[in-house]
């Protein structure tokens, strides 16, 4: 038992700059591999629907717009997305990618929806596994 064992540490920090980051006024950096929100690179998507099937939050929806012209639409409901990046892992062509944004809050959850309408990519990619 010692009285005031903490005092030296406290006094030492009195003259140091605080550890707190003045966050909304000073922006923070996220590490390179940060999992932000998923986005699609439509020119690569072959509409295999793996992402739709594996998404645990059911945040991805793929619809056929015009069957004969091979036009599809892919919607990511970012409000439901749990940012797990499973869609990135599941995608065989790397059409799904994660960005590094983290300040994505919004007053209306519908504004978070992202959609793409695109022609299905023709190339059959080599089965390329991320791991």
């Amino acid at each position, binding site marked *: *038992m*010692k*009285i005031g*064992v*903490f005092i030296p*540490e*406290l006094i030492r920090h009195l003259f140091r700059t605080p*550890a707190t980051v003045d966050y909304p006024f000073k922006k923070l950096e*996220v*590490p*390179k*591999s*940060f*999992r932000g929100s998923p986005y699609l690179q439509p020119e690569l998507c072959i509409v295999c629907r793996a992402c739709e*099937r*594996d*998404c*645990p*939050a*059911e945040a991805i929806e793929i619809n056929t717009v015009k069957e004969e012209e091979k036009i599809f639409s892919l919607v990511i*409901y970012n*409000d*439901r997305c*749990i*940012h*797990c*990046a*499973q869609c990135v*892992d599941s995608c065989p062509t790397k059409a799904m990618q*994660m960005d590094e944004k983290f300040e994505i809050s919004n007053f209306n*959850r*519908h504004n978070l929806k992202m959609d793409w309408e695109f022609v299905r990519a023709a190339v059959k990619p080599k089965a390329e*596994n991320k*791991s």
Partner: protein
Amino acid sequence: MNFQIPIGPQHPALKEPIGLRITVEGEIIRDADIRLGYNHRGIEKLAEQKTWIQNVYLTERICGICSHSHTTCYVQGVEKLMELETPKRGLYIRMLISELERIHSHLLWLGVAGHEAGFDSFFMYVWRDREIVMDILETISGNRVHYAINTIGGVRRDLDELQVKRILDSLEVLRRRSQYYLNLGTTEPSFVARLARVGYLSREDALSLCAVGPTLRASGVPMDVRKDDPYAAYDEVPFEVCTAGTCDVLGRTVVRIKELFQSYNIIEYLMKNLPTGPIAVRAPRRAKPNEVVSRYEAPRGENLHYIKSNGSDKPERLKVRAPTLGNYAATIKMLKNGFIADVPLIFAAIDPCICCAERAVALIDARTGQEKIMSLKSLKELSLKVSPTTTRKREIEWPL
């Protein structure tokens, strides 16, 4: 004069809703009663509707702090069901994250203990240093809380040289700081006065009430799943099971800080002996009908998942026994004959994770006060009776 104080479901000492009814006589607690069920989320039921791979992310959300514990426990079980051989490197990375998680959880607890005892400076300093671990976790996994590093058959992200070096470097700082907190926590008179001889739980009581984790180990029982029933590659790693003989909150604090040092050693070993090779194997989409029990030593104690498969791509049943549930009975024992002032400390000392432990469904008749426990089967029947034709709708606009 006896009267009852309701601590919770909403109370500043509780970070999650739980009801503690405490009968006090002056400042002395005569009886305590725990009421659960304010935060039942139906996760087990939901798991039956998701595929094996989707469930990894679901189990991760059972708990915010031991998120890796639950996925690892689940994934280990599923790997056993699917008869997969996880590569060594994958196992090592998995263990690395477990130990980092243990460090961050124990540091978090240490801070919370300080806060509950009104020692806010301690709380601030501990949490500041916890950021080091959080940052490492973020660089490795891409997120601070839900690491999502596990996948069936291995892990999802590899480590590079730079990260290994960074981890080893920060271990230095963490060791130094932990030593400082060990000294501080056991010598600052006002803090020790609050912790010592508070919440006594004898060795016999701890065993007979099935306490788990640091609560059990602080009563002098060296029980740790990592040693008793090694999973992943814990049988290759040298470490000790930390115990304390004081059986009080101070003992639980000391056990946790000692475990921090063990975790630092484990991480150092893992990083120095990191095997090369793949980090994951491909997992099939279906599992043969079978059942499995998977055990895991979470920061709070033994975590247990029971998984049953029926040959489809979804589990038939997933049962989660979170460590906190095992400690509730012991908590009541510890609370009795203590002071009101000690309630937050004693309760916090089991490191409760309340939503993780919400499993049972008890129905209480509001008019008569009668309690009724419903089985899963009768609940299913009830739900069918209430809405016989409803099927799962996908297309509905979600924010209804």
